[in-house]
């Protein structure tokens, strides 16, 4: 007996069964796949910069390297003038110094010991020794280039010793010691890259630390390279090694430190600017500026400067030159 109804029922049953059989086995379709981009990430804070104020029309509103003359003989650690800045620093127990941890041979973290050391660190220790009679009475605060001026201005540190170029713009916010090192800006490239200096890098990416004078010089140079700013100098070498930039341009001293970490790079071109380094000190502490200049004066004459230079830099830059002469505005 096959009535239309039963036939329909059977048809429905078959349909339901088929539907159920289908629901278990969807095909694993491989969707449209976008080609992923590989490669390393950029270091934190890296970004491109194509224009910055300043540079070519350099601020000549001041005589940048003229500092304050030391007064009388340098007081020893135990007879610092009462109420002087030095006496206050002595009371706080340690000299707080802003330094770098990324500039090989100047201010860097020794991976073996975990300690910060370098030319700048030894310079700072000499100041500590003059105040406390103890080279280790020092508290280090790592600053990236962009933090240096504010750290001094806000009184977070007593002193910044961090490959810091003296210029008029910074002089508006902080006071500088006399010049303790004379550097010049050059260019670091990969060997056999064909680049010969900043003039051959038009439209290419050139790395420097944020808010450094080097970055301003790069962006404003006639060949118009693209500036890439990062927090620290070693970040630039990372980007050069990872082919994210074509060159690094800054002071020859810093570049020598980078080149020493990568034998496949070289420093090329003539210096494109003079970079006199000074220690940055709060503006309202002229007594401390004169004191620091006194210590620097002593180091120039008693051979301390030369021995510190030889300890850190002669391997990179050859025999020690004469210490840079101090200039004073009295």
């Amino acid at each position, binding site marked *: 007996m096959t*009535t*239309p*109804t*039963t036939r329909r*029922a059977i048809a*429905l*049953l078959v349909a*339901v*069964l088929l539907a*159920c059989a289908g629901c278990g086995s969807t095909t*694993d*379709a*491989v*969707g*449209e*796949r*976008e080609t*992923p*981009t*590989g*490669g*390393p*990430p*950029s*270091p*934190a804070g890296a970004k491109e910069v194509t224009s910055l104020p300043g540079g070519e029309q350099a601020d000549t509103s001041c005589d940048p390297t003229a500092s304050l003359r030391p007064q009388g003989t340098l007081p020893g650690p135990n007879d610092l003038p009462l109420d002087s800045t030095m006496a206050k620093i002595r009371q706080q*127990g*340690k000299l*707080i110094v*802003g330094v770098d*941890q*990324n500039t*090989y041979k100047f201010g*860097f*973290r*020794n*991976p*073996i*010991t*975990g*300690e*910060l050391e370098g030319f700048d660190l030894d310079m700072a220790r000499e100041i500590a020794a003059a105040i406390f009679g103890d080279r280790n009475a*020092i*508290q*280090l*605060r*790592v*600053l*990236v280039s962009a*933090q240096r001026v504010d750290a001094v201005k806000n009184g977070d540190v007593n002193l910044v010793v961090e490959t810091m170029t003296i210029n008029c713009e910074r002089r508006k916010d902080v006071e500088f010691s006399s010049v303790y090192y004379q550097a010049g800006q050059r260019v670091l490239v990969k060997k056999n890259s064909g680049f010969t200096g900043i003039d051959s890098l038009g439209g290419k990416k050139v790395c420097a630390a944020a808010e450094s004078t080097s970055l301003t010089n790069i962006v404003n140079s006639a060949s118009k390279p693209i500036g890439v700013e990062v927090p*620290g100098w*070693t*970040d630039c*070498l*990372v980007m050069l090694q990872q082919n994210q930039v074509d060159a690094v341009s800054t002071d020859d001293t810093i570049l020598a430190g*980078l080149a020493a*970490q*990568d034998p496949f790079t070289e420093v090329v071109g003539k210096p494109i600017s003079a970079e006199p380094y000074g220690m940055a000190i709060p503006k309202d502490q002229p007594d401390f500026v004169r004191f620091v200049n006194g210590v620097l004066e002593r180091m120039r004459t008693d051979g301390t400067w030369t021995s510190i230079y030889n300890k850190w830099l002669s391997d990179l830059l050859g025999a020690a030159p004469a210490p840079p002469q101090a200039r004073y505005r009295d």
Partner: protein
Amino acid sequence: MSAPTAPPPARVDEPGPPAGRVAELRELSKTTPGVLILFTAALVLVSVLVGVFTAVTVQSRAQALDDLAGSSGPLSIAAQDIYRSLSDADATANSAFLAGGLEAADVRARYDADIAQAESALAVAVAAREPADLADPTGPLAVLSGKLSVYTGLVETARANNHQGLPIGAAYQREASSLMRDELLPAAEQLYRDETARLADDQDSASSLPVVEILLGLVALGVLFFAQRFVRRRTRRRLNTGLAIATGAALVSLLWVLIATAGVAANVDASRDDGSTQTDVLARARIAALAARADETLTLVARGSGAEFEEDYGKVRDQLTGDRGLLEQAASLASDGAVRDKITAATANLRSWHEVHVDIRTADDSGDYAKAVGLTIGRGDDSAAVRFDKVDTNLREAIAATTTTFDDEVSQASNALTGTVIGVILLALVMAAGSVAGIWQRLKEYR
């Protein structure tokens, strides 16, 4: 006068003038045997529908339970593992840079174990997805599987440079760490949230009200009721054995499904309240503790320019221990004494860890960096590393306990459904057979 039971003169179904099926049916329904035949057809149809649809819905419930036990449950654990091990790997790699010199063998082993665990959990998470889910290069799984190797590559470059005493090693480590914090960890967190949402969906569909089953059961009982009333009125017999058996089968089927799903719902609710909800809060607490530990380490690695990490430490600590913080939530949710004890221990250990943290900050801020580093990565009882590990262990054990509860409840729920599919199909067949037999008995009398 003929009794109502006497068969009326049988009408011969002659193929009349062109009549549609509807007319045919109308003709048929005017005679008792015709109605009986229609009832038979309806009952068979309803039986088949009840059997098939009830079996299908019970099966989908069982599938949701299988997913809970075998897919969304383990996957949310895997996502949690990915986050935890990546975060710990980064904190470990960074702390190796604090110590100076080559990292200690156990520090390296911990990093290796973290990466191995992250990779295996990631493989599990990837394998569970359809290939199309990985097509979006910004999706969490694509980011994780694409960038993890970049991360490990950077860490190895950092180590290689470090071995040669070059400061650029630290720069590579910073690059790696920022990749971890900016891309990998957010992707892992997204993955965890996705998997937890899937788990909640599976729990919802496993414990949903059996509306379809109830409706079908009631329809079957209704048709059987009308069939029996018709047969009783036309035949004056109180009981039709076949139809009675069919009714019994329909009732048993409905009750079986009701009892089984009520049991499932109870177990699944327990798996949520005593299991996954607590696991989620505990897992988030564990992730927050890891983040706080990473912040503590990075503050020191940054040497004085790590204020943002210390700020983040404060925020994460508030999430953990603040008012209605994660630990407080976990404690109020805890339904098991052992879990509550672990949470109490974790809270106490977190407090003693924070005491060391305050000492670390005091030491670092006053210039005693060496002491700060010693307190942070030392292995003594008074070090932050050891106290953090205690917090982590407490939370890990609490998570293990709530996960076990979850697994138990889900497997009990699965047991509650055992045989239900076969049962409802067999009962539907009994119902169909009973209906046909019962009505056939009456229909014979018209021959």
